[in-house]
């Protein structure tokens, strides 16, 4: 029975292959064979599992390869799925570095026991204390600020002050924000939990949800567009989306960018909420040294100078950026809460969002 099964599959396959013309047949077989062979495993390589799906990152990896001769293999998928993959692969995982686009996932990865400390003098010098794990299990390499985006037409910057202010009655029906399933909102709320405790955070989330002009939908960019279209007056969004709109090849996007302003909240208090992109060395990394070299490269001056220009994220040294666009939004004070806390308070934030019916 099972033999017949195999026979059927092969005969069907071979019928298909033999019905092709010869040139196509050869290339088809070549494709299959090339696919079945694993990529050669030289020592001069590093395998990255990355949540960041940026073409600009590929260009950076190419530079890294050019400078060090170390080939970079990449798997790009969501951090949660990649974490599951590393767990499933166990000790044989080919992964050397796990890169995520928020601190919470790195904290989670560490708690799952899949990361190891990366100690290096360079990393210690290049990454500020609050931008890395206490035991060096992960290091940040870009910073993302979550701010208020307002309509230049209908809102004066002096009307705005803090995240907490958005809970006030004057914003009834004027606020938009994306779904609470998004990690940026979760980490913002986690920072509020850390600053004011869970009860006040619950009151805040409930009030802001009540002030929304429409039920949460789409991405940060959709919120910014809603402000430009007049659906709402203030949106909660990350700054680099403004960069994307302002630099978009589509003239309609640039029009949107022209209608809105960037406001850094809580400047008289703890500062604007920031999160990071960061990476950690995987516990079973077959190429541990290359992994550390890659993290050193990503936190080094060359890569740091490139992020504001390509992905419109802030470098680790926020005030030191040379980018015209980023400078045009103004200097700001960032909340210097240890990023680890964002991960630790994440579960609270998720629960509070559910209670506030901020879906």
């Amino acid at each position: 029975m099972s033999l017949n099964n195999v026979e059927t599959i092969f005969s069907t396959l071979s019928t298909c292959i033999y019905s092709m013309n010869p040139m196509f047949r050869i290339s088809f077989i070549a494709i299959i064979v090339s696919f079945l062979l694993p990529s050669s495993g030289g020592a001069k390589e590093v395998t990255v599992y990355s949540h960041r799906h940026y073409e600009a990152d590929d260009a950076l990896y190419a530079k890294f390869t050019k400078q060090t001769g170390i080939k970079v293999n990449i798997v790009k998928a969501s951090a949660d799925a990649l974490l599951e993959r590393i767990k499933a692969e166990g000790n044989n995982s080919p992964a050397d570095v796990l890169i995520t686009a928020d601190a919470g996932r790195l904290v989670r990865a560490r708690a799952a026991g899949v990361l190891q400390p990366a100690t290096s003098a360079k990393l210690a010098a290049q990454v500020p204390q609050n931008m890395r794990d206490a035991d060096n299990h992960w290091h940040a390499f870009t910073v993302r600020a979550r701010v208020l985006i307002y309509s230049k037409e209908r809102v004066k910057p002096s009307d705005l002050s803090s995240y907490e202010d958005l809970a006030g009655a004057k914003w009834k029906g004027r606020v938009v924000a994306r779904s609470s399933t998004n990690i940026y909102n979760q980490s913002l709320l986690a920072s509020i939990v850390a600053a004011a405790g869970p009860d006040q955070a619950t009151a805040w989330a409930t009030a802001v949800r009540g002030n929304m002009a429409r039920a949460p939908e789409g991405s940060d960019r959709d919120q910014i567009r809603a402000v430009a279209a007049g659906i709402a007056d203030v949106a909660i969004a990350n700054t680099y989306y403004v960069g994307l709109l302002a630099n978009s090849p589509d003239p309609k996007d640039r029009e949107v960018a022209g209608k809105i302003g960037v406001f850094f909240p809580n400047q008289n208090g703890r500062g604007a909420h920031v999160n990071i992109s960061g990476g950690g060395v995987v516990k079973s990394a077959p190429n541990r040294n290359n992994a550390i070299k890659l993290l050193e490269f990503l936190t080094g001056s060359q890569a740091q100078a490139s992020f504001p220009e390509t992905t419109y994220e802030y470098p680790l040294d926020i005030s030191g950026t040379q980018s015209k666009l980023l400078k045009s939004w103004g200097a700001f004070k960032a909340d210097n809460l240890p990023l680890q806390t964002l991960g630790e308070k994440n579960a609270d934030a998720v629960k509070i969002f559910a209670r506030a019916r901020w879906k």
Partner: protein
Amino acid sequence: MPLAVVVATLFDSPSEAWREVVGYGVLGGYVKGTMIMLLGTGLLASIFGIGAAWAVTVWEFPGRRFFSLALMFPMAIPTYVAAYAYDFAKYELRDPMMLWVREKFGAGAMMDANIVFNHALAVLVLALVLYPYVYIAARIGFSEISGAYIENSRLLGRSLWRSLFSVGLPLARPAIIGGLLLVLLEVMNEYGAMLHYGIETLTIGIFNQWYDWEDTDSAIRLAGVAMLVVFAIIIAEMVLRGRSRFHAHHGLRRNLAEKPKTLLGAALACGFCSILLFFAFLLPLWELLKLAWHGVEKVQVGELMRPVFGSLSMALLAGLVILAAALFLAYAARLFPGLTMRLLSKMCMLGYALPGAVVVIAMLSATAFISGLVSVDSLTTTLFTATPIGLVMAYAVRFMTPALAPLEAGMTGIRHSMDEASRILGRSSWGSFFRIHLPLLSMPLLGALIVLFVDILKELPLTLVLSPPNVETLATQTFGLMHKEERFAEGSLPALILVLSGCVGVIILHRLIRRSHQA
């Protein structure tokens, strides 16, 4: 095995997070959202698919042959691309409408109107890109099974309209229900488009529980609820398909299209097909082209070759493997028509109905489990993670249904007396398979291959997580640029290539079908 885990969890005592899900009425919201999407999309896709298939089958009108092919094209557009391509409807139609509603009826009305609009748009967009599943199935049904009957009905003086309901639909029912099943399962597992429109479905809930609450238990519980819905759909399909065994009159296959009696009929058929094709394909394509026009200078064409190669080779390789396996399953089910085989083939549908990420997790645990069994575990891990074997297996778990459904429908169309005759003449069961079934199944086989090729081309979650390092496909590149980077202009280029290669696949296979008919 994943099924067993799900069932076992359902009987455990609920976790705290699960109580919160039920307590805040979240579960009700998920179920409601899912039902609206299933009913709306199912109904609309049926009207589009059956209407179009009937029009091109029985009417002769200008461009009929073009339409019969082109009406399949929308299936080449992934739902996540269609959602973006239809974004203009949100900004140019919805937002001005909402502002008007707020002015007239207040902020609360706008909030409600916005939700209604989003649901309607989501239903429309999904139906527009999913109806080809019904269309293809109905075409096969109308031309293969009921062609002769339709002709008789016409000879007996029934109008084409009445023939549709009295003869065409009842006889093509198994095929059409099979196509509709695919549509409903696609809707069940849709993730990206639902998030885009802010619609809460069970699939959204599963992700929510899994990733945000870090509560696998509740996620599996929700997957259990989703599976109940899927089971309900599958059982409905089995009941609807029923015990009916209508058989093809292959000797009588001929072109049914006839000159319509009235100009009105031709105009209606032509108009229906044109409007459908415009909204389902030309409009989204035009939007993508407009975006690509802005983005083209920022992209180096050479860089697009790698994902093109990755996509085409994966789609062909995995497509053939899955087809072979499906053929085996379908024939085994015919040889051993017991409940076990039927259940087994129905269980394969779960892979299609569950969200891709759940299949991913199931595959990962299966890999870990197998590695644990085999002592040389580094070898299995290498095979699964450094070669596409793991990905092809995952595709097989996911796409067995679109391969199996048309084959099973095709098998139903072959008389059992044929098997018996062949066996009496001394052929083994495998001998009869190659001599009788395989040739008679050529049409469903090619139909299945079309669907597989296009489905694998569009596939995203499995490809992202399970592919070996450095594999980029058109789908992953489109997703990266459009969804993650939100650089729509740049992302529209791989999206266009993805859609057009899907169309090329459809054209080639359509040709093959025509040739096999002439032979």
